[in-house]
């Protein structure tokens, strides 16, 4: 079990003309071990920048990211990542795509077969193991991306608006699968979205961010019971979140 601590994170970018502007400002929060922490905020507020910093694609200008597992802090741990688009290698079969992630994770070759089978079964795609990604539907590809992120068995999994590019019905099924797997596997998940109902359904904790530069707005514990069911209480919690996000936004204006 691991948790992720974001401490006083600060990130600057440069405009075209070279003038600097701040994207993330003094942001601190934690993603608790074994829980789903959902990050919501206005679009363009720096959520993806934060995720990129966590996986090392970008560097923070100030502050730190701490990965604590079993009481020890680690440098650059392995992190499972579900992207907005599936980002599968189209020239590799579904199985081989996951196998490559396992190889990167340092999993012994002898364990690949069973692990691939197990996680494809969890997302309901076990019969597609030898299929190429372009022969699958968008929702199925996203499931493969989910299986890959979980199969590396990292302590921390990031999900960056993973259902934003599929239609609503597919997204609903994917949410159900994903939430179910989070409850079952107890990974530490940091989930970024701008969909409030999705936030209400997926989360154990919700972190709301301010407009750019992003800093912590509120840290809300999700009162809804687990296992989660899609019902009216989801929407009432979403409405509650909405007052927090939008009202704050208007106050800024």
């Amino acid at each position: 079990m691991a948790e992720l601590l974001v401490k006083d994170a600060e990130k600057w970018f440069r405009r075209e003309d070279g003038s600097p502007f701040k994207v993330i400002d003094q942001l601190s929060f934690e993603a608790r071990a074994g829980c789903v922490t959902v990050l919501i905020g206005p679009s363009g507020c720096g959520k993806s920048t934060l995720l990129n910093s966590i996986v090392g694609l970008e560097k923070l200008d100030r502050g730190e990211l701490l990965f604590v597992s079993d009481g020890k802090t680690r440098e650059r741990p392995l992190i499972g990542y579900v992207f907005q688009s599936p980002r599968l290698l189209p020239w590799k079969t579904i199985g081989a795509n996951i196998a490559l992630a396992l190889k990167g994770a340092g999993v012994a070759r002898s364990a690949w077969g069973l692990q691939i089978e197990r996680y494809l079964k969890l997302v309901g795609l076990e019969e597609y193991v030898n299929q190429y990604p372009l022969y699958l539907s968008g929702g199925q590809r996203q499931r493969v991306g989910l299986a890959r992120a979980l199969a590396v068995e990292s302590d921390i999994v990031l999900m960056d608006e993973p259902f934003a590019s599929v239609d609503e019905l597919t997204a609903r099924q994917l949410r159900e699968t994903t939430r179910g797997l989070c409850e079952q596997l107890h990974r530490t998940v940091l989930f970024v979205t701008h969909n409030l109902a999705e936030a209400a359904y997926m989360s154990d904790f919700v972190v709301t961010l301010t407009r750019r530069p992003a800093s912590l707005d509120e840290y809300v514990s999700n009162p809804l019971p687990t296992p989660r069911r899609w019902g009216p209480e989801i929407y009432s919690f979403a409405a509650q979140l909405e007052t927090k996000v939008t009202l704050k936004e208007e106050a800024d204006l």
Partner: protein
Amino acid sequence: MAYEERNALMAADRTGVAGAQTVPPFGRSIGRDLSARVLPPLLAVASVILLWWALYLIYPRLLPSPLSTVREAIRLVSDGTFFFHMYQSLRRVFVGAVIAMFFSVGIGIYMGTVAMGERFFQPLIVLGLTIPGLMWALIAVMLFGINEFSPYFAVTVTIFPMLVINIWAGVKSLDKELMDMSHVFHFTKWMKISQVILPQLVPNIFAATRYGLGLAWKVVVVVEMFGTSNGVGYQVMKSYQVFNMEGVIAWTLTFVLAMIVIEYGLINFAEQRLTAWRPKIDVWRR
């Protein structure tokens, strides 16, 4: 028409439609498909032969007859001369192409990823592209004399810029999202090159190979004309010196046929194998 009657007819209509849908629409037009594919190229070849024949009938001293040329070609193939010299030429093309491919993939990737590399090599590549293969053939023979090194060198140097340009263009359009993905999942450097970068370059490498081979055949034939003592180019030159027109055309034709087999057969086959992951796209489908 009575109501029941019409109803019955409509029902029959529906079952008829449904019945048609349960039979998969495969295999009906194989014959038409084949003729649509095979007929046009056959017609093209036939029209060239007809034109040749007509010219021969009008100016018999200018051109050899197609028949005697084909007879000469058959003699070359059946007594094995063709295969010996063809092998020599092919080997030269192949060795030169492999050397050029090796360096161009390296330098192409370097140019596409490192700005300084791009600035350094770009003028050299442009320069290289403008130098005709014939010049390289001459320079190679003057530098290295009549030995195997000359054709290798000429082929390598001639096709190298063409290959680099293609691979460089491919590297510049690599998918950043996939590169980020490979970083996130801790791919090693070798995994990134072999599983993420090279597969994206496959179309560029095939385009480069086609262009490159097209150039390489021409260069090799020229080098062989004055720089070697065997090979197709040498044979063409020999026929030319005794003014054996049938020989010149027979050698040219057999050589071209062999090249077509290699380009359409081998390269297309390899490309189809390597891009089997891509669903077929029919652009002109209606």
